[in-house]
């Protein structure tokens, strides 16, 4: 709170000589804080690069990632092929660049759907309470009890991707698997946050001044309860990218023709002794992406945490 805002509570003060501080909400203050945080800046730059890579891979390479030159199979890195070539003679650099798209797509969509589902379910359960809360949260518990990877493996092996599936359905299935398993965490978190916000007097005041339930949820509950979910979603985004790579690594996530870091890592394993580049470069990109999103989530959490001030 700045000095200017501590306006005297006197009626005699004339309106003109009041110095008025610039209005600053929590999010505005958080933004100020974030801009000074090197973690935030670095992660944002990395994420921007990866997102651009995902949308316009052509900007980074002219080589077609599906141009295999079998004669050049397992060529080590050189000035012609920066990251070398893999078993099929594909250019590892081009495949790593093009691999960003699948990872980022899966991460973004999985985060979007888990947050949407989790926020809606958690808010309704906490706001209405009673038996509705009990039933909804027990269902959440059931989903929560399924181990994430095991559930993903089960889902993907029940509805496997095949080589002639379309790109959208290959990615969509992985997103669906991650979303179905990921929402309970967000729902629990959201329920907790709403339960914390609900007894606040401004919610009671809004009720006493005739606001409808929908308006109370939209204007008073959600804006005050979203912060933890936003942070955890951001961190989860990194985790979903990792999970996608894990599923692909196990051969049940994304499959060719989709190009993905997980697939590349999986393909490279048998040749790790002859051709390290084949494994190392996609791994570095995967680690950096996951790290960037987790760092971003961390920085945002710190900025929104009033105790850190």
């Amino acid at each position, binding site marked *: *709170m*700045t000095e200017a*805002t*501590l*306006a*005297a*509570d006197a*009626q005699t*003060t*004339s*309106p*003109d000589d*009041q110095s*008025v*501080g610039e*209005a*600053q*909400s*929590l*999010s505005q203050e958080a933004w100020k804080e974030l801009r000074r945080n090197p973690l935030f800046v670095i992660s944002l730059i990395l994420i921007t690069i990866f997102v651009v890579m995902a949308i316009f891979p052509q900007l980074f390479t002219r080589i077609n990632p599906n141009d295999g030159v079998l004669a050049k199979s397992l060529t080590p890195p050189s000035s012609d092929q920066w990251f070398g070539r893999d078993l099929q003679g594909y250019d590892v650099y081009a495949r790593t660049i093009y691999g960003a798209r699948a990872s980022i797509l899966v991460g973004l969509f999985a985060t979007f759907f888990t947050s949407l589902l989790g926020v809606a379910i958690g808010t309704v359960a906490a706001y209405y309470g*009673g038996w509705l809360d009990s039933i909804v949260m027990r269902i959440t518990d059931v989903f929560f009890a399924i181990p994430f990877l095991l559930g993903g493996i089960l889902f993907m092996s029940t509805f496997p991707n095949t080589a002639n599936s379309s790109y959208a359905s290959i990615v969509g299935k992985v997103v669906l698997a991650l979303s179905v398993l990921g929402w309970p965490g967000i729902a629990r978190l959201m329920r907790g946050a709403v339960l914390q916000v609900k007894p*606040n*007097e*401004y919610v*009671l*005041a*809004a*009720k*006493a*001044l*005739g*606001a*409808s339930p929908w*308006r109370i949820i939209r*204007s*008073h509950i959600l*804006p*005050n309860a979203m912060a933890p979910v936003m942070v955890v979603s951001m961190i989860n985004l990194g985790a979903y990218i990792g999970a996608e790579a894990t599923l692909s690594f196990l051969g049940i996530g994304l499959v060719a023709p989709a190009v993905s870091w997980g697939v590349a890592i999986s393909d490279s394993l048998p040749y790790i002794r002859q051709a390290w580049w084949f494994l190392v470069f996609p791994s570095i990109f995967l680690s950096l992406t996951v790290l960037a999103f987790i760092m971003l989530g961390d920085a945002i959490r710190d900025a929104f945490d009033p105790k850190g001030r």
Partner: protein
Amino acid sequence: MATATATSAATSQYQPQDGRLLDVENLHVHFHTRYGTATVINGVNFTLDQGQTLAILGESGSGKSVTAQAIMGILDMPPAQIPEGVIKYCGQDLLTMPEEQRRKTRGPEVSMIFQDALSSLNPTFPVGWQIAEMFREHRGMNKSDAYAQAVRLMERVSIPAAKQRVKAYPHQFSGGMRQRIMIAMAIALDPAVLIADEPTTALDVTVQAQIMGLLQELQEERQMGLILITHDLGVVADVADRIAVMYAGRIVEQADVFDIYSRPAHPYTKGLLESIPRLDLKGQELAAIGGLPPNLMRIPPGCAFNPRCAMAQDICRTERPHLLEVGPNRSSACHFSKEVLGA
């Protein structure tokens, strides 16, 4: 301002009969908990007329805030339950009204101010937005008109530089200013009844006086019925017309403000008045009421006040006194009201 009052009064479907706004009859509120049922309100009766200020006085846990919340319909049910009682607003029972119809009375008809203005304002939105929301929700106004109304109201409750501050956030205001904003929101739609639940408890003494002055001014200007809930006898003395003293969920004494201060008719009221520090009785020990209010799950038989009452006799432990007329326009629930009055 005057025109706004006139138009809203003309369009309202609620018209007070003979100036009678609120009629609370035999109100009971129970709270069901894991440990049993707490009888928080146990048969409360009172009325409120246009332009009248009724102060409801009592200790913490006497049921005064729950009474207010029952009138507003913002009790959490469950755990709360209203097994009995009628709350009539302009002749219509609020308790049997469909929820949607009742919601529409909150704001334009009956409105409320809370104790802690900091937590009563949403920290994520500018104050002007929150005042404007009242007009957008109930009157369907567009954004710029609603903001203009918000500025007008902020000026009315004497917030300096209202035009500049309309976009400021609650944490940028002092406690008194926040309470003014809360008042602006509560009176935005010209309610006929305003309930103020300990509006000055969280404020400095000097600011308390300003806020009470503002409330009184607004009440006279709009002829609102004002219910003032407080535990502070000093606050009500200047403002209230009538006082209802609550103890353990019941009204134990009800009278005009002058009568109650000069000659209380209930030992509890008397005890409260004696426990006010007085300048002319310097150096003496302050008379406090011994003991604690009863556990609302186990209210003692007979008069709830008997374990703490110096005048208690056998009848007080067996028979519950009714709220009876003890003088012109005043009533008391005590077997020995005449003795208390005479003493």
